[in-house]
């Protein structure tokens, strides 16, 4: 029983897309597809010119490591690593991102510090254990990590749901500024429609997912 059935969904490079939908509308399945964790049972999936369903698990892991920045809803950070180590983590698993980070700054540390600075994390926090940070700070550190090494695709899975209204806006602004500089595509999932104005486009997933309409139909 498929949970997500799409005729077609196209997101342009550099686009900032807001994906909206109630729970069960297939949001997390879409994100899993885009990040290469799962492949479609039918049809094709092109991300950044790669046909993901033709790659094996390890190749897709490499694809994710090289090209995708991912921000979770909560608890984004490895508890036993410092703020800096968390931010530099993607470069440990991807040579491409390592190289790209070094194109921007002379060392990984400086690039990480630059991103943290951009995301408004004070210098004194950089070497703190991540558990001492507030939720908002943690989410900004997670954003810095997702942006490290300038991945082409930034996926955010309701990263602002634990923040209050003002902080949400500030967080998005910082995130967008940085993505614009890097030319990254942003796929942002949320059920908070108040944010959609800040995006280029909104996709109402429930409306285009034929599986979910079926399910809704079956339920009613």
């Amino acid at each position, binding site marked *: 029983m498929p949970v997500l059935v799409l005729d077609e969904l196209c997101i342009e490079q550099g686009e900032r897309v807001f994906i909206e939908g109630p729970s069960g509308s297939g949001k997390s399945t879409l994100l899993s597809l885009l990040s290469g964790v799962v492949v479609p049972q039918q049809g094709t999936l092109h991300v950044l010119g790669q046909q993901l369903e033709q790659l094996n698990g390890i190749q897709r892991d490499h694809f994710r490591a090289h090209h995708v920045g991912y921000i979770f809803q*909560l608890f984004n950070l490895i508890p036993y690593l410092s703020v800096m180590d968390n931010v530099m983590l993607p470069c440990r*698993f991807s040579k491409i991102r390592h190289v790209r980070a070094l194109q921007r700054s002379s060392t990984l540390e400086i690039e990480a510090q630059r991103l943290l600075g951009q995301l408004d994390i004070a210098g004194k926090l950089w070497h703190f254990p991540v558990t001492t940070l507030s939720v908002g700070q943690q989410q900004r550190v997670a954003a810095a*990590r997702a942006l490290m090494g300038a991945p082409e695709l930034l996926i955010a899975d309701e990263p602002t749901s634990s923040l209050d209204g003002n902080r949400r806006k500030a967080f998005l602004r910082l995130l967008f500024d940085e993505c614009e500089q890097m030319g990254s595509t942003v796929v942002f999932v949320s059920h908070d429609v108040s944010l959609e104005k800040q995006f280029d486009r909104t996709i109402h997933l429930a409306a285009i997912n034929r599986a979910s309409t079926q399910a809704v139909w079956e339920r009613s």
Partner: protein
Amino acid sequence: MGAIITVPILRLAWKSLLNRWVTVGLTLFSIALSVMLLMGVERLRVEARESFANTLSGTDLIAGARTGGVQLLLYSVFRLGHATNNISWESYLDIAAQKSVAWTVPISLGDSHRGYRVLGTTAEYFKHYRYAVNEHLAFDQGQSFSDLYDAVLGAEVAKKLGYELGEAIIIAHGASDVSFARHDDKPFKVVGVLKRTGTPVDRTVHVSLEAIEAIHIDWQNGAPLPGLSTSAEQARSKDLTPKAITAVLMGLKSKILTFKMQRFINDYKEEPLTAILPGVALSELWSVIGIAENALLIISAFVVIVGLFGMLTVLLASLNERRREMAILRSVGARPGHIFGLIMGETAALTLGGISLGLGLLYGLLFIARPMIEAHYGIHVPIGGLTHYELLLLGIVMLAGFVVGALPAYRAYRLSLADGLSMRI
């Protein structure tokens, strides 16, 4: 790719362990203790054998009254236990006169001095007794006994009791030093102190056979006969030929004759006797003690397994709370293999750390216990490196640790495959 990936994974494993230092520390310590126990038992086993084997060399046969071979060895050489019977002096002379016999050293045990055994013997003892690999006894001070009431001390007796040459000592009857059973009418003079040997000789007071006879002149059944008192000087004029001895150490003219001579003594018609090859009796002793030793070794091996299972429990229990961590790692591009490597890395660090700490504890303990063992048993415990067998044991522990660790690692691997990037909290 290999290098850039394995190094960060090991770094991650290390930092993850540091983060959980209390549980990790306790796990490490329990592995260390179990490894220390295992290695300690192994050491003890080998050292005990070594020191027993080094106690006597160059003696072809030991003869005593009819008894178990091991028992004869233990009381005549190691001063453990007591002889139940003696050899008559006549039998001794008969044995000593056999053609194949090169030398004999008669010994007589039974008395003590402040907890140390007194051994009656002849001057031949200092000439023929050998230990380790053909080491002869040597005098640190003074010389062998020449007068009736002369005594030669083992190194430790002299050191512990602070005796100097010329000092007078009183011998007690039997093994316990109680005031009513002392030969205090016939004091001995210390005329020699032997060099340290690391054998029971160090804890022995040596006197002549005639002296043993002399101090027992007025004694019967372990007590002085009432009304009789032969003074030390009077005793000199009496016939001091021993009536019986405890055992006799002997060397043969050719080793080929050993078994013939052994048979001769075992079949001796006049008196029931036993002759043993000390090395053979020692092998027999080990073959029985070996059972207990193996039991000890098996028990300590089980303790190691328990220690490793402790590690398994800790790792498995932590996995559920770490699923979030695994998802984060997967989101930044870690493959399931990395997750496996992360847990294996932690296992390896724990096992290796446990082994190192255990060895450290063992050597520390040996260092502290060494002077005590030497003082109590006269056994010198060398602190050497690891033997091949010990390395093999450690290798097995290491391997067992890896096998045990593979279980949670595999589980983490499966979980990370199933969970993907989904956060299960």
